[in-house]
């Protein structure tokens, strides 16, 4: 445990004050409130950066993409609508898309030469275990990932944390496309139920 705690250093274990509601902040940001944006930055930049870094990997590019995402939030705050889901989901979906756009445009040139990375690729979630900022969140997600079948988990992780398309996942795992589609869906549904996500 002490070992674990040390590895988590650099990120506070418990936030000093309750995190502000990102939806309320976005609403104020939409009206040009810079101080609300600053608080929004504090609330979401960690999750955004962590996810982007996971997908993009290169530190400089990850920072660049994270900044783009944050600026995009400033620019498009008024376009957020609670009907579509939580503000955090909106933010994370945007971050994921931007990160994936970045790696896909870069990858098309390299064309995933190294199948050898499969081993490494197969454990993308555990890899970042040391970096998580919210242990509770992390533990819960890990527990739920553990409730998936091996193949569901592997597919979901490759798609989400590596930014692969389902076609790429299919190729990498040597599994038919239809099977991968089903696995991604079933895997996420199981995650949803395990995490108790409403929407």
């Amino acid at each position, binding site marked *: 445990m002490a070992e674990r705690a040390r590895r988590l250093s650099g990120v506070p274990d418990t936030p000093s004050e309750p995190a502000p509601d990102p939806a309320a902040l976005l609403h104020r940001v939409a009206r040009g409130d810079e101080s609300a944006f600053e608080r929004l930055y504090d609330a979401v930049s960690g999750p955004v950066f962590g996810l982007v870094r996971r997908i993009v990997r290169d530190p400089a590019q990850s920072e660049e993409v994270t900044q783009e995402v944050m600026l995009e939030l*400033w620019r498009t705050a008024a376009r957020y609508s609670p009907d579509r889901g*939580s503000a955090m989901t909106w933010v994370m979906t945007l971050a994921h898309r931007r990160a994936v756009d970045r790696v896909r445009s870069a990858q098309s040139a390299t064309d995933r030469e190294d199948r050898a990375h499969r081993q490494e690729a197969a454990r993308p*979630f555990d890899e970042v275990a040391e970096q998580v900022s919210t242990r509770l969140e992390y533990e819960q997600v890990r527990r739920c990932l553990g409730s998936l079948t091996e193949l569901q988990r592997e597919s979901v992780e490759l798609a989400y944390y590596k930014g692969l398309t389902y076609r790429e996942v299919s190729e990498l795992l040597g599994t038919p496309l239809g099977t991968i589609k089903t696995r991604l869906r079933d895997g996420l549904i199981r995650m949803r139920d395990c995490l108790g996500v409403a929407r």
Partner: protein
Amino acid sequence: MTSADIHALTGAYALNAIPEPERAAFERHLAECGACAQEVAELQATAARLGEAVAESPPPAMKAAVMARIRDIRQLPPVGSDGAAAPPARSPWPVRILGMAAAVLLVVSVSLGVVLYQTRADLADTRAQAAVMSEILSAGDAELVTGAVDGLSGTVVYSRERGDILLLADGVPAAPEGKTYQVWLMGGRTPFHSVGLVTPDGRGRAAIVDTTGEVASATNVGITIEPEGGSAAPSTEPIMQMDLS
């Protein structure tokens, strides 16, 4: 693609794992399938949790950099866009149809997916469209407007920063004998910039792309009927025009 097949893509979509142009096709399906949209929303929320679980503090200097940069960035008004996270919004289509008999109504309506999944004969072309669309959509200021008028739907995708616009249409009747459809960007640096001539395919679908940068300053997209070969400037009233936000 059968509907069962396409429905199974909710998971892949929520994980942002569907490549273009398939993604556009799926988004079109989403707009029509309430149950799918609900499932996607839930699965996106689930995926977001996977993301939050790997949070990591960014370098402290980033905050000041971001705070400094927002001062130079204009915020978008809260009008009909579909944001980044959502399936295409069913926002009102900003279309003004100028007086015209119903028989010759040209409706720029798009079915992204349908247009992009055409026959092999025009695959090269649709691939090019898909590439451009995907590029435009990746721009920070991309606008994707979809909607419907009288049962017909349409989509225009553009980025003023990039200077690219893609317009896709279906339900387009053949142009009158000896005439052609011509698409214009209007109200910008060039008052009437010809995007080009469009001819609908056998199923009334057409698409056109403009990457000259004229869209950066244009205020409308319009379509006129012109003599074969096109005109240097519109010679008739636009049969349709759309406001660019």
